């Protein structure tokens, strides 16, 4: 187990290097640069700025410096947000995105697992069909359609909830964004739980549990769910990557100062240190998260050995 974890952690380093190099390559190969924006600056000043950021050195020196800094987790200062280090921007925007993502995923887990389990227990009932049709709707309705529709209904017509703006952690401002972000995952998790549970409920060990006289409640909660949730656990890894894409959209709709908003702006401004910092940060967290999921897998299913 420990060897497995160490090996995976070691693999993380070259993978982050690959992603960061790809990003750096894309930024550098593209025509133009940060200074070819709409507002032209005098050549002399550009020259000085280039010197300051080391942009006049040969590309391999710059690449090496970028890699070294990335591995030290020091991403330098943003070009656009002058004087602000990438680290401080990350520290400022991460809590916003993390709150959003975490709440959305928790909500999706609770609703999805409940709906999926009920649907599996009452297979082919009205409840089953209704929840699966709803789940399909959740998968098909893009979050950038759902979000504005929710705003239209709950903020602009009923005036119940504020339409946009970040309002700190426990605040009504979070309700609509979290709902918007969570819908797809709710739907996916409900479908995964249902198919996982359907499979498990036919397994011999469930028959054994029933045969030894356990109540239906105990059979489901203590025996079936553990096996039936395996697909949900393995979905958690990829879900994080999609969750990040989802937060980009939701943060844009609801004007949240999160990681996604900064990432978009950085891309539009060609703010190289900020892009690389955010990409590296996201890659590292996705990789570590995947590792955690694999470890959790081993705990839930004792048949899995590393």
């Amino acid at each position, binding site marked *: 187990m420990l060897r497995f974890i160490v090996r995976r952690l070691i693999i993380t380093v070259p993978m982050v290097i690959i992603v960061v190099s790809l990003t750096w390559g894309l930024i550098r190969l593209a025509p133009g640069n940060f200074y070819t924006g709409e507002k032209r600056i005098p050549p002399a000043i550009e020259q000085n700025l280039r010197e300051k950021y080391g942009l006049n050195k040969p590309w391999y020196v710059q690449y090496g410096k970028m890699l070294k800094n990335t591995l030290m987790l020091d991403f330098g200062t943003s070009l656009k947000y002058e004087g602000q280090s990438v680290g401080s921007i990350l520290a400022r925007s991460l809590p916003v995105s993390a709150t959003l993502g975490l709440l959305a995923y928790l909500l999706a887990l609770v609703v999805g697992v409940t709906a999926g389990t009920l649907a599996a227990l009452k297979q082919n009932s009205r409840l089953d069909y209704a929840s699966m049709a709803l789940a399909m709707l959740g998968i098909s309705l893009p979050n950038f*359609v759902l979000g504005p529709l929710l705003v239209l209904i709950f903020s602009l017509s009923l005036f119940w909830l504020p339409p946009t703006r970040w309002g700190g952690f426990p605040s009504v401002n979070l309700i609509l964004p979290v709902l918007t972000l969570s819908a797809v995952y709710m739907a996916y998790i409900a479908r995964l739980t249902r198919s996982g549970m359907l499979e498990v409920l036919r397994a011999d060990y469930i028959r054994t549990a029933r045969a030894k006289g356990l109540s239906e409640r105990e059979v489901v909660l203590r025996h079936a769910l553990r096996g039936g949730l395996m697909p949900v656990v393995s979905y958690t890894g990829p879900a994080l990557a999609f969750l990040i894409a989802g937060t980009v959209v939701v943060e844009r709709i609801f004007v949240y100062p999160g990681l996604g908003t900064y990432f978009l702006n950085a891309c539009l401004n060609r703010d190289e240190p900020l892009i690389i910092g955010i990409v590296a940060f996201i890659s590292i967290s996705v990789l570590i998260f995947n590792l955690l999921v694999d470890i959790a897998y081993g705990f839930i299913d004792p048949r899995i050995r590393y």
Partner: protein
Amino acid sequence: MNDEHDILDEPSPVEPALDNLGQPTKPPVRTRAGDITRPTNELAVGEGDVRTAERGEGEYIVGTSLWRDAWKRLLKNKLAVFGLVVVVIITVTCLLGPPILKAITGFDYAYIPSDSALTKSFPPFTAPDGSFSWLHPMGTDNAGRDILARVLLGGRISLMVGIISTIVSLIIGVSYGATAGYLGGKVDDVMMRIVDVLYSLPYIILVVVLLAMFGGKSPLSQLVLLFIALGAISWLTMARIVRGQVISLKNQEFVTAARATGVSTGKIIFRHLVPNTLGPVIVYATLTIPQVMLSEAFLSFLGFGVQAPLASWGSLANDGVQNIAIFPWQLIFPGVTMALALFSLNFLGDGLRDALDPQMRKV
């Protein structure tokens, strides 16, 4: 609770299909001649397969049965039929709609009225003087362009991106997966390890960087970039599925026979093995289309995808969301159309999976 009876007694929908003799059907095999046959019960499997590869027509049961069976099963699934019908309707409308619309009302997707009184957003079914009119069933956008015409164009482009990117992902995924599966051993290990690694990368983020850096030159080059980028990121699951299929097929006798008669490795993979993986590949391709369309919409919504004067459902939603408070129809029509299309495609894909491949069930 009576649930337990339901669960135990009812035949599982995913049990292997039984043929009319009540025996489980063997996996169908596509022969070199291109016919799909099932190993019949009178013959030993191996014998049957070798004959299949060597003899002409009429020696064994020629069956279109796999596809006919699948079609019958698909028709029984009401939701899948609904999906199929809606997908066909949307596709036909998007293909034929623009010229018809142009002929009837004279609007196309890029038409901006020259009269400045008309270059603003009118609600659906409303004439400039506020009375009822059939002129713009979905209203107009900020520049006075007909939203119906733009939604139809958006449909064309969204479907095109979905289909072409799926084909790109098919080409990459099938060749990659089949090669890894057939060669096996170390090659397979390395190739699948690469897929695992790619799986855990936040590639959509990289696509955003790619499009932000290289996009924006012309609407057309942007589209090509989209096809390639989206195709290049959606082949991973396809590769895994095809690899699994190929591994289960490669030890069958028709492959041995092909090898014995001196067929080259490449030909064995692409002429003998790949056609046999068609069922799952079709199923997964159908499910990839809505995923790719969603990714395209995501990118277009963020402004990195399809660019004006062209439009996709995602870019229309992006335009609409800016004016959601005043002109909600600018978002609602493209958004709902897109959701309906994705909904139907997903149902169709689900139905196809149940029909073609009862054993494969994931999300």
